[in-house]
């Protein structure tokens, strides 16, 4: 099912004017920021399709910036997000591309903070719902509707077993899971949509597992960001 629950139809509460160009954009920006794990110092956003054609009139740029500041879709600061970004010391650059994208409303977000960097490719699929297709060039399928755990880890036998058994011992159910790797024995990325928010204890146990490089929690329902775990 593309749309999973009643609030993907009625909702979100949002700053206008377009659920796909504004609310969906804010969500994609926020997922990218949570994937980075902190407020970016520099952001580079490339817009495709209808995003590229009409982003200014819809405030897509403001919504994306608002998302990068960890704002929810109905945050009243979105119309003034450019000023807040400046205050936060965040440098933002927009590009448009005429290349075909998998969905009309697609954005590629690249973020930097100190020696951290990350990227995301995602689409706004209608009604404010989004679908993230790639994180750091790893293929994923993330909706942002559920708390999502993203692990970077080595492509080694047994890593997933120890990760899932750690999660199961915390009593949290995994609703959807996807694994992708760059190369055999190289770096891999696992994304898991969870039925409940992961607690700090589970996260620290996961982080201490062999071959686990990094963990991020993406949770759009949270009021505050899950920075710097």
């Amino acid at each position, binding site marked *: 099912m593309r749309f999973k*629950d009643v609030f993907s139809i*009625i909702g979100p509460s*949002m*700053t206008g004017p377009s659920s796909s160009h504004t609310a969906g954009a804010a969500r994609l920006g926020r997922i990218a920021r949570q994937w980075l794990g902190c407020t970016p110092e520099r952001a580079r956003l490339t817009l495709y399709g209808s995003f590229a054609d009409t982003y200014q009139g819809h405030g897509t740029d403001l919504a994306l910036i608002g998302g990068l500041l960890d704002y929810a879709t109905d945050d009243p600061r979105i119309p003034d997000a450019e000023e807040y970004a400046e205050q936060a010391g965040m440098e933002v650059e927009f590009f448009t591309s005429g290349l075909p994208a998998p969905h009309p409303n697609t954005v590629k977000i690249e973020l930097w903070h100190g020696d951290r960097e990350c990227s995301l490719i995602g689409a706004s699929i*209608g009604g404010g719902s989004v679908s993230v297709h790639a994180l750091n060039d790893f293929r994923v399928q993330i909706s942002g509707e559920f708390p999502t755990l993203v692990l970077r880890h080595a492509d080694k036998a047994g890593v997933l077993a120890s990760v899932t058994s750690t999660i199961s011992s915390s009593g949290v159910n995994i609703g959807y899971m996807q694994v992708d*790797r*760059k190369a055999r024995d190289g770096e891999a990325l696992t994304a898991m949509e969870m039925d*409940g928010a992961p607690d700090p204890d589970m996260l620290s146990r996961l982080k201490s597992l062999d071959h686990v490089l990094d963990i991020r929690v993406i949770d759009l329902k949270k009021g505050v960001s899950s920075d710097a775990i």
Partner: protein
Amino acid sequence: MRFKHLHELNAICTAESKTIAQLMIEEQVQETNTPEADVVQQMSEYYQVMKEAVHKGLNEDTVSRSGLTGGDGKRMAEYIRKGETCSGDASALAMAYALCVSEVNASMGRIVATPTAGSCGIIPGVFISSQERFGWSDEHLVNGLFCAGAIGYVIANNSFISGAEGGCQAEVGSAIGMAAGAMVELRGGTPEQVVHAVGLALKNTLGLICDPVAGLVEIPCIVRNGLGAVTALAAADMALAGVRSAIPSDEVIDVMLEVGSAMPSRHRETAQGGLAQTPTGRKMMEKLAKPKAKRAPEPELETDGAAGSASE
């Protein structure tokens, strides 16, 4: 969810003597593992946001970000006060409120996507005007939102709800179907009548293109929200009177998918056809600021990285 189609929604509700709203709440609780009180609370908050948007549109001068639109909701409300409506005060008020919410949306104010922002005026327009008219409690209207959500869930998963994918029939059309069906349930109609209302409403918007001037959610979106609210009330009346959709409503949804898929891209929100490309539409677009972004250095966007799953 236990239903994917409207006929299933009707069958389950009829067999278990439930309203569609009750079933939707139960399914939402089950699907998201959230307590019922929280689910209902969330929807109640959304209803308050809708009311605030109507209030704001009626009492403040909303001007869109582009400067192209604003003030029509207030204009309608003043006209109704003069007592000269052609469509009847109930229809005219639903229309006025729908215009208000859509104008608040265009001014980057706060609204609830129902199912999208482009169609955010129709459900509040129908619901809030009917609440005033019939003296219903907020709780009753919140149930109505769950019923509307169940209908939208079926449409969204069998067809589409965004103009970019399926044209305006998917966006404003879906909202009209949702509002019409919910209105039937709010007035005490049966689940079967609800389902007929959806089909009756959707048949009237099949083929509607998405052709926003300059790509903005303003012209003709705001006016279509206003008129959509009236259509929803009319379709609800037809169904409550016992009129049936001769083509089953699920099949009408399939037609929406067929028509939307066949629609050329210039009629799916790209502003490259329809009203957007009329001489006046083009002039409006030229007056607005040009995009300031640079072109991206090519090539870009590799969604297909190394395939395969990690070995275990």
